[in-house]
């Protein structure tokens, strides 16, 4: 299984529908400070159900919706889809939310609760997102963590 595609619309610095195709192997993402690289990482955390907005550098839902610039007005909706799969099967995970806080998840086109998505990922051997996403500045947390917190990492693998 690998990430085939991330589609972002309205999330942080992505007002336009942006489709990013991925392949197996190593994909490198580069660009100047503040251009949006970590925002892509945040969108993956968000579509996979990140509940604590602090973990994607926000406080309220409006922080993660495109808030406009001198030419464009703020948007009212944020949408991210993630397609993971291989040659045989595909999982399409979607998360949509609105400024008023309303939100919905979809799995392969069908509206579901977040738990169903987590179960489907678990069935494919994909664990908690903290296990495979290391956000900027966080790598050293494995060393600075308390032994009990470090154990959670192992439980993911066990």
């Amino acid at each position, binding site marked *: 299984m690998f990430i085939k595609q991330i589609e972002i619309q309205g999330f942080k610095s992505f007002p336009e529908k942006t489709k990013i195709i991925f392949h197996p*192997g*190593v994909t490198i993402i580069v660009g100047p400070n*503040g251009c949006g690289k970590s925002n*892509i990482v945040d969108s993956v955390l968000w579509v996979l159900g990140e509940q604590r907005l602090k973990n994607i550098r926000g406080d309220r839902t409006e922080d993660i919706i*495109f808030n406009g610039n001198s030419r464009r007005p703020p948007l009212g909706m944020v949408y991210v889809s993630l397609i993971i799969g291989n040659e045989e099967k595909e999982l399409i995970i979607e998360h949509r939310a609105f400024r008023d806080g309303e939100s919905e998840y979809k799995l392969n086109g069908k509206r579901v609760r977040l738990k169903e998505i987590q179960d489907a990922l678990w069935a494919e051997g994909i664990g908690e997102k903290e296990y495979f996403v*290391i956000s900027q500045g966080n790598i050293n947390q494995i060393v600075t963590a308390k032994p009990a917190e470090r154990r959670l990492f192992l439980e993911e693998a066990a």
Partner: protein
Amino acid sequence: SKELFLKAFNEVNENFKKVFNILFGGGRAGLKLTNKENPLESGIEIIAQPPGKRLQNLMLFSGGEKTLISLAFLFALFQFKPSPFCILDEVDATLDDANLTRFLNFIEQLKEKTQFLIVTHNLKTMEIADYIYGVTMTEPNVSSLYSIKLEKK
């Protein structure tokens, strides 16, 4: 269950020793249960000794060393149970050239089983890319992506 956890722990511990050796170019390291009698309640301690150095409080290690130890732990887990994909955001920021090279070599070993998405500012890291995306803000607050063609050597 207790057996499953201990089996995983022991295997990850073996991996950790080897990965640490590779990333540090030597030295000794291991994982330790804080509560041997009660593994299901136990925390996990890291014991690390870079080549020639003495055992010491984990906090005394340098920024780059802490990153390398953290990566060794993460990769030890991946060797036991590969994650299908892994997203790393600027984990190489504090690594010097020698450590960076060993880190990148290890990624190339793991990429058979794990797809990597790596955000970086480092030119050396870009060299192991199969694909490169550049991100820009031609319009303030609006990100756009473009592919960077790779001439594979």
